[in-house]
C-alpha cells in the first residue's frame, strides 16, 4: 500500500524530468544549426588565424620560424629589427578614412534623416526612405565603377569643372586628378555608407516625441536651442549607433579603397589582402593584422552594445 503513492510520486517526477529534457532538447534543436554554423565558420577560423598569426614568416610552401609574437612586434614594436612603420601608417590611414567617412555621413545624413522623419509629407515618407536606400540594391562593385567614371581624368567631374570655367570667363579652374587619391576613397566610402547612417538616424528620429520639441519651444527655446538641447540628446543613442556602424564597416571595406584608391591610399583591408593573395604572401603577418582588426572592431561593437544597453536601461 505504501509503495503506490511513492511510485506515483516517482512517476510524476519522471514525467517532470522527461518534460524538462524535452524542453531542453527543443531549445537545442533550435539553437544547434546556427550554433554549429558559428563554431564552424566563425570561431574555428578565428582561432586558426590566431594560430597562424603567431608564426612569424609563414608563407605558402614555407614553414615559418618558431612560434611567438614576432608578427605583432613587426607592426607595433619600434625596437624590433623587423619593425616597419609603414604598417602603423596604414592602420592610421584606415582610421582616418573611417573617421572621415563617419563624420561626412553624420553631417550629410542627419539633415536628410531629420527631414524624412519630421518634415517630409507623411504619405510620401515610406516612398522617400525606400528611394534613399535604393543605391543599396546594386552591387558595391558597380557603385565603385560608377564613381570611377565620374572621377577619372576625363570623367564627369572634370568635364563639369571644365564647363564651369568655360562659363566663367577669366576664371580658370584647374583640372584635377581625382581618381586614385584619398579624396576619391573618402567620396566612395561616404557614398557607400550614407544610406545606412540615414536609415539608423531616421529610425531614431522617427521615435522622437514631437511634444518634447513643442515643450522646448513653449518654454522659450529657440529652434537652435531646441535642436542642441533636446533633439540631439534624445537621439544620441541613434547617432552613436549610426556612427559606430559606419565606422566599423568603412574601416573594413575593401572594394572602395582598392578600386578608387591609389598606391598612396593603402588601407589595412588592402594590406591584409596583399598578405594572403597579393604579391607579398606573408600569411603570418596577414593573420596578425587581421587579429588587430578583429580586436579593434570587437571593441567598437562592445562600445555600441554598451551605449545601446545604457539607453534601454534609461528607457525602462
Amino acid at each position, binding site marked *: 500500500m505504501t509503495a503506490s503513492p511513492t511510485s506515483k510520486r516517482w512517476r510524476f517526477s519522471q514525467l517532470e524530468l522527461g518534460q524538462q529534457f524535452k524542453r531542453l532538447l527543443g531549445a537545442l534543436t533550435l539553437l544547434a544549426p546556427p550554433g554549429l554554423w558559428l563554431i564552424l565558420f566563425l570561431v574555428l577560423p578565428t582561432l586558426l588565424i590566431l594560430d597562424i598569426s603567431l608564426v612569424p614568416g609563414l608563407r605558402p610552401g614555407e614553414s615559418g620560424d618558431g612560434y611567438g609574437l614576432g608578427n605583432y612586434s613587426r607592426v607595433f614594436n619600434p625596437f624590433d629589427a623587423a619593425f616597419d612603420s609603414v604598417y602603423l601608417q596604414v592602420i592610421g590611414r584606415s582610421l582616418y578614412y573611417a573617421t572621415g567617412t563617419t563624420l561626412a555621413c553624420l553631417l550629410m545624413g542627419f539633415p536628410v534623416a531629420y527631414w524624412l522623419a519630421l518634415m517630409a509629407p507623411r504619405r510620401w515618407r515610406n516612398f522617400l526612405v525606400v528611394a534613399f536606400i535604393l543605391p543599396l540594391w546594386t552591387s558595391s562593385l558597380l557603385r565603385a565603377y560608377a564613381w570611377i567614371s565620374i572621377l577619372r581624368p576625363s570623367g564627369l567631374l572634370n568635364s563639369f569643372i571644365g564647363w564651369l570655367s568655360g562659363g566663367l570667363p577669366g576664371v580658370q579652374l584647374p583640372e584635377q586628378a581625382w581618381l586614385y587619391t584619398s579624396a576619391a576613397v573618402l567620396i566612395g566610402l561616404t557614398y557607400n555608407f550614407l544610406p545606412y547612417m540615414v536609415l539608423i538616424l531616421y529610425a531614431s528620429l522617427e521615435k522622437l*516625441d514631437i*511634444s*518634447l520639441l*513643442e*515643450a*522646448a*519651444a*513653449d*518654454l*522659450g*527655446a*529657440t*529652434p537652435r*536651442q*531646441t535642436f542642441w*538641447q*533636446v533633439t540631439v*540628446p*534624445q537621439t*544620441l543613442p541613434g547617432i552613436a549607433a549610426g556612427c559606430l556602424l559606419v565606422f566599423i564597416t568603412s574601416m573594413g571595406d575593401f572594394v572602395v579603397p582598392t578600386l578608387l584608391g591609389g598606391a598612396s591610399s593603402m588601407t589595412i583591408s588592402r594590406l591584409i589582402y596583399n598578405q594572403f593573395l597579393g604579391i607579398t604572401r606573408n600569411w603570418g603577418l596577414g593573420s596578425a593584422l587581421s587579429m588587430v582588426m578583429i580586436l579593434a572592431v570587437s571593441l567598437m561593437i562592445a562600445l555600441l552594445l554598451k551605449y545601446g544597453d545604457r539607453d534601454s536601461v*534609461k*528607457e*525602462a
Partner: protein
Amino acid sequence: MSQTVSPSIASPQTQQVLDVELRQVSKYFGGEAAIQDIDLKIREGEFFSILGPSGCGKTTTLRLIAGFEQPSAGMVLIQGRDMSRTPAHRRSVNTVFQSYALFNHMTVKDNIAFGLRVKRMGRSQREQRVADALQLVKMGSFAHRYPQQLSGGQKQRVALARALVNRPAVMLLDEPLGALDLKLRKQMQVELTNLHQQLGITFVMVTHDQEEALSLSNRIAVMKDGDIEQIGTPSEIYDYPQTPFVADFIGETNLLQGEVEFADSQMLRLLTPEGTTVLVNRSEANLPDLKTAVVSVRPENIRLSQEAPLNEGNCYSGYVKHIMYLGTHLHCVVQLQTGERLTVMQPNRSEQSLTPETPVYVSWLPSDCLALAA
C-alpha cells in the same frame, strides 16, 4: 489706445482686462475645419475651461493660444497684442502637456530650469526660482531624480513646476489630470485650485471631464464640432444650458422633443410624438416662436413615487426598467406608459422598495425643466 494693466490682486470678477482673446479664429487641417469662427475672451486671473467631447476642437484651440498652430483665419491676442504669427517660443504662455512631455535626459531640476536656462537667466537667480517652484509643487526631495523614476502624479507636478517657474501670463493645461487615477485626480484638482489662487495667473484648461470643469473653473466654454456652444459660469452652464447638447453633455439629462402645442408669455406646452404632454416654464429661455422644442429635465429634478403625486405639472405613470444602486442615490430608468424612458436620480431612502417592474409615478414642476431650441 492705451493698454492699462490692472494689478493682479483685483478679483477676477470685477476686472475686464483680457489675457487671451480669440477673434473669429478658424483652423483648417487639409481643408477640414477643426474650429470655425471662434470668439473667446479670457479675463486676467480667471480659471477658464474649454470643455467638450474628443474631436470638438478644444485641443486645437489651446494649441493656437500656445503657438503650436497658426490660425487659418482670425486673430489670437495675448494680453492685448496680436500673436497670430508669433512662434511659440516668443509667447508669454506656458503649457502643461497631457503626456507631460518631460525631458527624460534631464533630472527633475534641469527640467524645471530649462525655460530659465534658455532665456539665459543668471545661475543664482535660476537656482532660487527652481527651488521655489519645487517647493510649490512639493517635489523638493525629488530634484535629482529622472522623470522615468517618478509616478504619474509626480510627473504631473514636475510638468506644472516647469511651466510655473517661468511666471507666464497664462498657463495652458491640456487635459492635465487625464492620465491619473481617480483619487489622485481629486487630490490634484484641489492642488490646481490652490495654485491658481496662490499665483493669480490665468489658467486655461482643456478637458473632456465635465465634473472637473465644473468644480475647478470660474468660467467654461463648451465646444462641439469646432464651435463654441455656450460660455458661462459653471452654474449658468449647468442650470441654464442654452442648447440640448450642453444640457446633455454637462451632467445627465432627459431630453424630450416635441411640437409646441400652446405658448404664452409664461408657459409652453409640448406634445411628443409618443403623445406625452409636457408643461414647461419659459422664464429664462427666451425662445422665439418655434414649432418644435426640446425639454430638458435633470434626473435629480424628477420625483419618483409609488402613489399618485398631488402636485400639478408633469406627472406620468410607468414602471421601473433598470435600477442602479449608487450608495447615496438610486439611479433608475423608468419606462413610461407612452413609451419614453426617463432617467431618475432618487435619494436612497430605506422605506422605498424599488425593484424592476415596480409601477411608479414620475413627476416634476414646469419650473424644474427647461425649454430649448431643437
